């Protein structure tokens, strides 16, 4: 019996050893996150958690400097016609993909064509503008549009427009091949994603100092869903970076042995509440506004986020063109339960006839708690809310259908949007819109198209008009900023970590102790 037992022990420990090949190496950067990327196909996803990985593997056609100005990337330079309808991009020479193939103007064209092809079904398509043709002439790519689109270069500097090497897509398989600082090695879904340093890398991103290949050997993203486990792993040195739990972030910030990174003021993130606005009674602006009045953003910030985020009433994130908190506050609903009750009464709801809603959300730290806070606050004005959780990708799919429905259980939902430019309002609200939230209102649609033709002050004014419409019609209730995957922490002897636009982590300059 003894020998049998010993055998069982040996077998089990042996197997545990075999199945975990990713032992930590002193030259590895290991980043522990709560969730895993959904996909590494840029055209198929639009989640921050996926972009944070893709940003390591793929590069952008253009980059944004620390003031938000567009500078060169895979394209050394670009030109825009005065009417913002023709753009040319001159490629940097001799850019090599990780598999040895060349990234040239043809490869860039392939990316854009694929993203805007309706067959691809990319939710990012609308952010490329109304592209009518793409042409390659030597190392120059010319993109022509049927409508003016001034923010195109800025968009091309964002993670949504990362450029994959065409060899990435092989039928239904995605084998990530890029030009970025890190090469794809392996991905064990929901466990770890291993990247290795690209020794031939030449950096042109102004946010990064290191001109060449990253200093570390490998970059590993690990998934550790539980906050306490991530913190324990950070403290024992099992991982280099971790997304801290909101409980720990404040403590670590005070501890000089740790560095806490909070998005470098470039998160461009805004969390908001939306409605299935076609399903009665949420098609009634009074009911939508009543829900807005019932919500105390400060309680969400305090209870949900330990004060680590700020409440906001603007549909456009702080720091972006057209952000004007004073104006937004005039139009938005502030916390006022009495007003909420009065409006609900007007719409025919009261204690004997309470409004029943679903709150459709996806799980995320801080948000889970905020959802319960909201549920409680709505209960206080007589609205009964049932919370329904779905993982984000599933949530998007579900909401794309639900938001289009005109009958059934009315639902409110929360989502976050980030970008380097307020043009993401088009991504959200131009039908069908992301997650089906497009709004069929000719006035709004006209403004969304018009702002694309403008620039500078005039564009800012138009973006403000759009926000006024969204807030007075209460199609969205802005909640807080930032709010997802924006926190990172490491021991303070790890240096050089940076966060780019929309909380894209940059590891090129990271030096391990």
């Amino acid at each position, binding site marked *: 019996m003894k020998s049998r037992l010993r055998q069982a022990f040996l077998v089990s420990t042996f197997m545990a050893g075999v199945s975990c090949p990713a032992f930590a190496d002193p030259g590895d950067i290991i980043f522990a996150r709560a969730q895993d990327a959904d996909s590494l196909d840029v055209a198929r996803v639009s989640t921050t958690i996926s972009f944070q990985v893709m940003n390591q593997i793929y590069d952008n056609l253009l980059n944004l400097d620390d003031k938000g100005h567009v500078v060169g990337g895979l394209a050394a330079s670009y030109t825009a016609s005065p009417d913002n309808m023709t753009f040319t991009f001159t490629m940097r020479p001799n850019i090599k993909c990780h598999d040895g193939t060349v990234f040239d103007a043809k490869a860039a064209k392939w990316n854009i064509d694929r993203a805007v092809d309706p067959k691809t079904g990319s939710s990012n398509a609308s952010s490329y503008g109304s592209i009518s043709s793409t042409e390659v002439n030597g190392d120059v790519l010319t993109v022509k549009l049927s409508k003016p689109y001034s923010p195109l270069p800025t968009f091309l500097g964002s993670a949504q427009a990362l450029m994959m090497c065409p060899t990435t897509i092989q039928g239904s398989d995605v084998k990530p091949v890029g030009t970025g600082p890190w090469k794809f090695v392996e991905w064990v879904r929901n466990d770890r994603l291993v990247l290795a340093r690209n020794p031939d890398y030449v950096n042109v991103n102004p946010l990064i100092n290191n001109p060449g290949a990253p200093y570390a050997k490998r970059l590993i993203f690990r998934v550790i869903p*539980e*906050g*306490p486990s991530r*913190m*324990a792993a950070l403290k024992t040195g099992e991982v280099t970076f971790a997304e801290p*739990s909101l*409980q*720990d972030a404040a403590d670590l910030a005070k501890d000089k042995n740790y560095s806490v990174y909070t998005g470098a003021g470039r998160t461009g993130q805004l969390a908001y509440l939306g409605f299935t606005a076609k399903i009665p009674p949420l098609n009634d602006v009074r009911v939508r506004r009543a829900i807005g009045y019932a919500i105390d953003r400060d*309680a969400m910030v305090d*209870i949900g986020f330990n004060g680590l985020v700020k409440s906001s009433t603007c549909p456009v994130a702080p720091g972006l063109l057209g952000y004007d908190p004073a104006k937004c506050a005039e139009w938005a609903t502030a916390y006022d339960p009495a007003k909420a009750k009065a409006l609900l009464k007007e719409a025919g709801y009261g204690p004997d006839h309470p409004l029943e809603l679903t709150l459709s959300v996806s*799980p995320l*730290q801080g948000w*889970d*708690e905020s*959802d*319960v*806070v909201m*549920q*409680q606050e709505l209960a206080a004005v007589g609205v009964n809310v*049932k*919370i*329904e*959780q779905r993982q984000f990708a599933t949530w998007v799919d579900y909401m794309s259908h639900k938001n289009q429905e005109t009958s059934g259980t009315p639902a409110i939902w929360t989502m976050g949007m980030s970008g380097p430019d307020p043009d993401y309002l088009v991504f959200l609200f131009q039908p069908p819109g992301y997650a089906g939230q497009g709004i069929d209102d000719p006035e709004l649609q006209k403004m969304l198209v018009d702002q694309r033709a403008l620039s500078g002050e005039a564009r800012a004014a138009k973006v403000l008009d759009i926000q006024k419409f969204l807030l007075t019609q209460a199609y969205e209730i802005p909640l807080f900023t930032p709010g997802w995957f924006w926190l990172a922490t490491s021991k303070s002897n790890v240096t050089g970590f940076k966060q780019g636009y929309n909380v894209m982590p940059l590891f090129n300059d990271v030096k391990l102790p």
Partner: protein
Amino acid sequence: MSALAQAAGKPAASLTVAGAPRRVLLRRILRSRSLLIGGSIVLFVVLVAIFAPMLAPFDPDRIGSGRRLAVPGAKFLLGTDEFGRDILSRVIFGARYTLYIGVVAVGIGLVCGVAIGATAAYAGGWFGNLLMRIIDLLYTFPDVLIALGLVAFLGPNLTNAMIAVGISAIPYYARVTYGVVLSERQKPYVDAAQVVGAGHVRVLLRHLLPNVLPPMIVVASLGFSAAVLSAAALSFLGLGAQPPTPEWGLMLSTGRNYITRAPWLVVGPGIAIFVTVMAFNLFGDGLRDLLDPRQRQRTH
């Protein structure tokens, strides 16, 4: 109660006659003690559930009853959770959910299981055989797997979790019923009833069921603890109760995010599940020894 006392008296007498040595006596005391302890705790949990609104010092769902993550103390005996809700109040109200889940799940399992088991035993032949073969097959698989599979496809929420847990226990009830009915069937009174001309349904309901009932009570009590445990596990995995329901498994699931700073979040609800499940196990064990000392069935 008197029936129980009677049943309790009989074997005790026979034991003394057999000149039982002290250790057998000890076992017997331990057994009846388990009935006593288990029964009192079950009663306690039931009372807590019934009088929850009177017992709970705070509204279980009210955010900010106190400071967030307050340490257990005089005002909040079990501390507060991440919303500043009183944990004691939530544990008290949680008893309602636990009993509700247990009753519904056992109800589903018992009704379907007894129907299938009794039909198979009574009908016999190829039909009864086939029915039991399928039940045996399902019995091979852990109930967690069956419940998980059902919840996955029905969609995760409390109602579906209860249904899934109930269905996953059907094989257990069906097998026990089958065994009991089969042995009862062979007894002369069934034939006698049939000779007199009683219909099948009548024989099943009037004659078999009363004899089958006592072992089923035991099985239901043990099944109750299993159902509570499975449902709590589903909620813990996020496939059962949804927030802000003060369900014990769910409380553990959210509480574990704060385990480093506020371990009391996972202590109270955990002990509540543990004690309740143990109470039903003890109660069932004790009952079994009293009502049906021969029968040895798996508890899980």
